[in-house]
């Protein structure tokens, strides 16, 4: 019996010919990531470990300031400073200060720090994003990250793999985000717990790299350990443009054993909405818009949908128009590079002219930190990945999740709106 893509990568990093689901392995890591929140705890843990003086390899650690940036208060500033001092002391090569990076999961692929076949662990649950490039990547807590800092290894239980099949062309107005919301809805929020998701099919082959990043990002929303795509020509072009480092492209064997195979009906897929208060409470937009759902805030950005393609989609819909007077729209480019690209293309001006506020890259609004926190009774439509009670602020607020197109279309009307109508309108204008 052959191995899945995840099993292949884990076996090679554990120095084994083969691994099987359930097996516990010690695997070498190619990169360890932390942000100022997870690093704060990890650094303290590392300092408490007897014999732990230096990180295992200063070129294989990435530290990104992104959660409470720019610092929202003195305590956040202290954590950021602590990470900066640690980076200097340990001579960490990949340290991203405010203004020089952005959201960790947007920054690492962009900077060539992720390549196919690599094994990456990060002190953030959305570390699974890097599966988009054919890497095994998973989130862990700070103590595990501290151990990886010093050992360059982690223990892992080999997950069984769920193969998800997507075949056919997406309808106009339907995007990678909708595919993934439908997937989380189908699997359920613990449907892939302890498992790998392997994405397959012609829809996936046709998808851009940013679309794949969006999909891999939300593997954790089904509880998965990782979500992974096979590297193809697009992947290699994306990675080769950014690094000359050698890497090994792995492929699942033809006779790999999958725990189960799930198919998503792509041709019939409408834009999808995750309703409050779990990311698997997913419904097609035609059902959701039967009621008029008024909004107080629209948020476009995050490690799920803060890529240049996402901003282009939003700008196309909002170009020359004004957002509804009843709401506010917050746009958050995913990284400094995305921000600059959007500036060059006139996107930031288009969005600002429509009445959106364009923020600096960061995680704040998505996790209820700062820069767009919801108040009691408020309702937000967001391109982010989670809508748990209190996720974006008040426990009495509601968060709906959708694609950038659905968010932009809804920004114009002030209520949840099918982007296919808005896109049609902009095509004729």
């Amino acid at each position: 019996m052959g191995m899945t893509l995840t099993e292949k990568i884990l076996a090679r990093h554990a120095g084994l010919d083969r691994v099987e689901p359930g097996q516990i392995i010690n695997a070498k890591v190619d990169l360890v990531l932390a942000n100022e929140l997870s690093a704060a705890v990890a650094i303290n843990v590392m300092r408490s470990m007897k014999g732990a003086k230096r990180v295992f390899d200063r070129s294989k650690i990435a530290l990104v300031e992104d959660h409470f940036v720019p610092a929202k208060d003195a305590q956040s500033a202290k954590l950021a400073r602590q990470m900066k001092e640690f980076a200097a002391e340990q001579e960490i090569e990949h340290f991203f200060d405010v203004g020089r990076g952005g959201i960790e999961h947007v920054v690492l692929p962009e900077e060539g720090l992720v390549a196919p076949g690599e094994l990456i662990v990060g002190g953030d649950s959305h570390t699974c994003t890097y599966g988009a490039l054919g890497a095994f990547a998973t989130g862990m807590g700070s103590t595990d990250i501290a151990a990886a800092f010093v050992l360059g290894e982690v223990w892992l239980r080999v997950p069984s793999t769920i193969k998800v099949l997507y075949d056919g062309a997406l309808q106009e107005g339907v995007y990678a985000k909708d595919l993934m919301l439908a997937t989380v809805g189908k699997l359920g929020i613990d449907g892939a717990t302890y498992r790998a998701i392997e994405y397959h099919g012609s829809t996936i082959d046709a998808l851009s790299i940013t679309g794949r990043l969006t999909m891999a990002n939300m593997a954790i929303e089904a509880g998965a350990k990782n979500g992974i795509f096979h590297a193809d020509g697009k992947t290699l072009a994306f990675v080769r443009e950014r690094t000359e480092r050698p890497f090994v492209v792995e492929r699942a064997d033809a006779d790999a054993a999958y725990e189960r195979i799930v198919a998503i009906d792509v041709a019939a897929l409408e834009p999808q909405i995750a309703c409050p208060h779990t990311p698997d409470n997913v419904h097609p937009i035609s059902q959701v818009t039967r009621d008029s759902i008024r909004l107080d805030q629209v948020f476009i950005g995050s490690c799920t949908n803060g890529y240049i393609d996402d901003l282009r989609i939003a700008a196309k819909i909002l170009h020359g128009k004004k957002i509804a007077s009843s709401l506010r729209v917050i746009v958050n480019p995913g990284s400094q590079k995305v921000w600059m690209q959007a500036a060059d293309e006139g996107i930031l001006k288009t969005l600002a002219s429509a009445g959106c506020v364009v923020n600096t890259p960061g995680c704040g609004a998505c996790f209820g930190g700062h820069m767009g926190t919801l108040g009691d009774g408020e309702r937000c439509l967001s391109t982010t990945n989670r809508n748990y009670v209190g996720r974006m602020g008040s426990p009495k607020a509601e968060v709906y999740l959708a694609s950038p197109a659905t968010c932009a279309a809804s920004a114009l009307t002030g209520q949840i709106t099918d982007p296919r109508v808005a896109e049609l309108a902009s095509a004729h204008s």
Partner: protein
Amino acid sequence: METTLRGHAHTYGKNVDTDVIIPGKYCNIVDQAELGKHAMEGIDPEFSARVKSGDIIVADSNFGCGSSREVAPIAIKGAGVSAVIAKSFARIFYRNAINIGLPILECPEAVDAIAAGDEIEIDPAAGAIRNISKGTNYKAAEFPPFMRSLIEAGGLIPYVERRLAEGR
């Protein structure tokens, strides 16, 4: 290893996520006791006022889903909770709880039978759960051998220290 733990049950449903265990706005807090003041705030604002040292959280499936924030189990521990019993745990929370020394037990039968306020006694090493209020006994799922050796070694930190002493 911990000896016997004893306290009253606080019961919750399924999919208790890390955002309600410790809301994002508190994630820049490092102090365990301070975090404990906000434990479970998103789902149960009165929890920190009500909880007594040694009390036990009892929840349905997928406890701790969502973010990788290690402050989630730290906040629970900081509130004085001695253990969490659930039908199942989300993956990252499971690792984090073991790493920081918060006893967790998987036992669907116990979860179904325990009511809020029941007095519970736990022997974490044996996986034994006793509902003193109802006079019933349960056995939690055993940890896989590797996890057991990690727990017996005192957690991940001593494990790493030993590896470092052995020259990796």
